[in-house]
């Protein structure tokens, strides 16, 4: 009879186990989110990540082994980014009517994200590599990593900061914007997508379709804006 250890060693080598675990962890996170009455603090991504990190730790599974299975989910990020053209397309008529607010919010939001992160980092005396990795963290991950490499940051640290910025934005956006008494779904969505890229956009899509479309727009435009302003803002703090 095959014992449990043999079955485990077989399953833990293939992609099936960790692909299933990723989907189950997310389903559990999503169930918690619904049970909590869609409270933004109960973020499904955060719960899924915590559950999986704990599971990998308990089973002493290396991240590379986990990623063998999770890569199928991770791969869909690219096609999903392309698919964001659909909510953008659906909002084109209202986008045309919001050209000036979009441009003004893009410049103000993008500068605020980079300058405030750099100012706080510099005030705490973090080293130059960390500073260069902080500058592009509001851009979507592949863009941020590319920018960080060009201005002397660390690609790994940038990836960490990008994800943390995304989750922070997804968690704080709704209570923060309610506190500011902003009811314009365009303004709310655009600011969240601009600041917290895809994770913020995913959150905005859950809240309101208009917010989702403007978040996708904010993410796309800030990818361009960050590439242009990050070298300049970093030079202010060096």
């Amino acid at each position: 009879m095959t014992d449990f250890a043999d079955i485990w060693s077989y399953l833990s080598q293939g992609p099936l186990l960790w692909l299933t675990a990723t989907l189950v962890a997310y389903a559990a996170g999503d169930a918690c989110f619904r049970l909590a009455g869609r409270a933004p603090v109960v973020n499904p991504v955060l719960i899924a990540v915590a559950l999986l990190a704990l599971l990998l730790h308990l089973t002493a599974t290396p991240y590379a082994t986990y990623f063998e299975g999770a890569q199928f989910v991770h791969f869909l990020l690219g096609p999903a980014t392309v698919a964001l053209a659909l909510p953008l397309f659906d909002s084109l008529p209202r986008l045309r009517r919001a050209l000036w607010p979009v441009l003004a919010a893009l410049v103000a939001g993008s500068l605020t994200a980079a300058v405030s992160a750099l100012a706080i980092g510099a005030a705490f005396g973090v080293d130059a590599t960390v500073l260069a990795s902080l500058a592009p963290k509001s851009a979507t991950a592949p863009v941020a990593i590319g920018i960080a490499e060009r201005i002397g940051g660390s690609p790994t640290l940038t990836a960490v900061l990008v994800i943390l910025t995304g989750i922070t934005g997804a968690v704080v956006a709704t209570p923060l914007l309610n506190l500011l008494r902003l009811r314009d779904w365009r303004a709310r969505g655009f600011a969240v997508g601009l600041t917290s890229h895809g994770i913020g956009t995913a959150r905005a899509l859950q809240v309101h379709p208009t917010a989702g479309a403007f978040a996708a727009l904010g993410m796309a435009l800030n990818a361009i804006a960050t590439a242009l302003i990050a070298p300049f803002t970093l030079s202010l703090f060096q």
Partner: protein
Amino acid sequence: MLHALIAILAFQLIGETLARALPLPLPGPVLGMVLMLAGLVASPRFAALVRPTAQGILSHLSLLFVPAGVGVVGHFATLGNQTAAIAVAVVASTVLAIAVGALTFAGVARLTGSRDD
């Protein structure tokens, strides 16, 4: 569904190719999104074809960030003694950027009479 999937992957493929061939600061999928938007504007039939599949992929967009998020946990150690400073910088700048971005949008919308209806 098959044709819609081919279209989405093809736009990403063209985007990735352009991103490498041209000196653009944008990643392939973002270029693919811009190209796909042009395709949707050009043809209502194309929009109808890709709609169900695109909506299907987007309906669980948050899920797609889970593998990268798990990777982040393993890198907390690399932050070292600067962890607190980095955490403050990330949280404060995120709060500020969302607030400033949204307030600017709403303010300029009011000034220019841009309403959402």
